[in-house]
């Protein structure tokens, strides 16, 4: 490698001591001070497949307005699924914890939302802004409750089984069963309605071709929140020191501790944030379904694991692309061949794994 030669044969430059001015005043933050440095190439293929699916769906569906309606619905569904799965992908990708109990935080978030929105419905009345505020209040409370329970879940259930995948699966599934029963004790075993407030009902209609494309208001909000979560996760993980510590801690926990950082405290925080995101996803999924049952978490768990497996077992970008593929595929096949839609996600997972057995964006340390 050229750098080896550089290191070995370059004449030793003058060695300024700490406190002396930098040699030549050259800033050290450029790649090689103008020298050619090979860069890692971004893998565009999964994104091209996503784009290809959207483009190919147009001739298959025929009507541009139906295509746009389904595409918007699929993207919104995919982003809701991403929010739900993002917590698990954080916990699995960064902490290597297989949390099969993730669903209980989804259910918890959804049930907390029924209480908060039910409690605020009288206050919100017909006021659109207040209704909007009640949705965000429900999301905030659901995240806080799910995050706090997640913190306790990590300390009591997960901590003793770090590094033991089989035990993680067993104990977190047990935790989910217990959690579901507690939810039944608090909210009852029956389905509870979680209607969208009036301000989020209905759709905007865009004239396209021979008809109108319907873009539902709630799906637009869900898509905005999903994109916000993706952007926030990307920013924190790539551009902050906390993100660096998390990424480094996954690779070599001992070395991070040797540098003077408390990794355990950091990982408890990651688990709590992952649980809070599940709570947020639960609210969004509940509003999407407009009803909540204690089994909602277990039902969504299957979808989440498909997304995470497609994505590359712990990759945030993979989870994002995988969720969008799942959302779009479900909507397109639901329109074109409803019976096929029943196993479209499984088919998608099989196709992706045949192409890339490690998933779309494999996590390198796994």
């Amino acid at each position, binding site marked *: 490698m050229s750098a*080896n030669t550089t290191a070995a044969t370059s004449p030793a430059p003058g060695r300024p001591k700490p406190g002396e001015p930098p040699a030549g005043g050259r800033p*050290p933050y450029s*790649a090689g001070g103008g020298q050619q440095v090979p860069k*890692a190439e971004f893998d565009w293929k999964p994104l091209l497949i996503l784009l290809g699916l959207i483009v190919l769906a147009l001739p298959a569906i025929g009507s541009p307005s139906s295509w746009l309606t389904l595409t918007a619905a699929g993207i919104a569904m995919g982003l809701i699924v991403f929010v739900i799965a993002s917590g698990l992908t954080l916990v699995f990708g960064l902490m290597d914890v297989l949390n099969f109990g993730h669903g209980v935080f989804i259910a918890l978030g959804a049930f907390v939302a029924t209480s908060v929105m039910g409690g605020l419905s009288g206050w919100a009345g017909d006021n659109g802004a207040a209704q909007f505020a009640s949705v965000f209040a429900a999301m905030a409370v659901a995240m806080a409750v799910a995050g706090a329970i997640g913190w306790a879940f990590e300390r009591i259930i997960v901590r003793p089984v770090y590094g033991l995948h089989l035990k993680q699966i067993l104990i977190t599934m047990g935790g989910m069963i217990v959690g579901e029963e507690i939810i039944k004790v608090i909210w009852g075993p029956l389905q509870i309605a979680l209607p969208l407030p009036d301000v989020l009902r209905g759709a905007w209609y865009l004239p396209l071709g021979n008809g109108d494309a319907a873009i539902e208001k709630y799906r637009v909000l869900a898509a905005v929140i999903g994109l916000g979560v993706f952007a926030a996760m990307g920013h924190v993980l790539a551009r902050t020191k906390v993100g660096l510590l998390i990424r480094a801690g996954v690779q070599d926990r001992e070395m991070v501790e040797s540098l*003077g*950082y408390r990794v355990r405290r950091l990982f408890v925080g990651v688990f709590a944030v992952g649980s809070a995101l599940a709570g947020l996803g639960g609210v969004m999924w509940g509003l999407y379904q407009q009803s909540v049952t204690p089994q909602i978490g277990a039902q969504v768990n299957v979808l989440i694991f498909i997304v995470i497996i497609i994505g590359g077992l712990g990759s945030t970008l993979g989870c994002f692309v995988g969720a969008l593929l799942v959302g779009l595929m479900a909507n397109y096949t639901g329109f074109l061949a409803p019976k096929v839609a029943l196993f479209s996600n499984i088919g998608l997972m099989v196709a992706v794994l045949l192409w890339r057995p490690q998933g779309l964006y494999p996590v390198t340390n796994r």
Partner: protein
Amino acid sequence: MSTPILELSGVHTHIGAYHILHGVDFAVPAGEVTMLLGRNGAGKTTTLRTIMGLWRVSQGDVRFQGQSLTALGTPEIAHQGIAYVPENMGIFTDLTVKENMVLAARSARNASELDTQRLEWIFGFFPALRKFWLYPAGKLSGGQKQMLAVARAICEPRALILIDEPSKGLAPSIIQNLVTAFNELKRQKTTILLVEQNFMMAKALGDSVAVMDDGRVVHRGAMRELAEDESLQQRLLGLSLGAHQ
């Protein structure tokens, strides 16, 4: 000999059911380079890991600047001012060289808060790190990774640096770079405890030496004396410096 900055007295370490260190005693004088030598499996790496709290002391005491470290966790020990370069280098391969350095500098929240003058000083020893500043550390060569590992340990002033076999598997020219860097640190009175199998490197750097065998320190003294006494080398290490020249 100057005042010891680090003292190990009667240190025993168990790893699971295995009793690895059997009462290790030695001191590291401040401002000097102390070599920790010994055959493979003598307990050198375990000693460094025990000092860092990565293995717990089961009996005995480790005192740094007069304070016992045995009850402290690894992060707290690092905060006392001890830097550690492990045998496997501990490089975060998915992160760039810059990100590795930002993590090593506890006082910096991002690259712009790194001490530029100190970085320039480090780049003086290891110019490859400047060249590959934005490059994933996992793509560096073995020698460059070792340079990064050492650079991380010295990117902020530390009272003591523990380094485990930095020359392992490296080309002689890269080893020479490391020797130059360590000599510069030594000139600045940085205290270093260096585990090394390369006797030539040990001879070039060491002020004092502790030789381990079977989990115990079997010899302590000046490095110069050991370097000059081939029969002692033969007895303690199974080699003679003359045979390696």
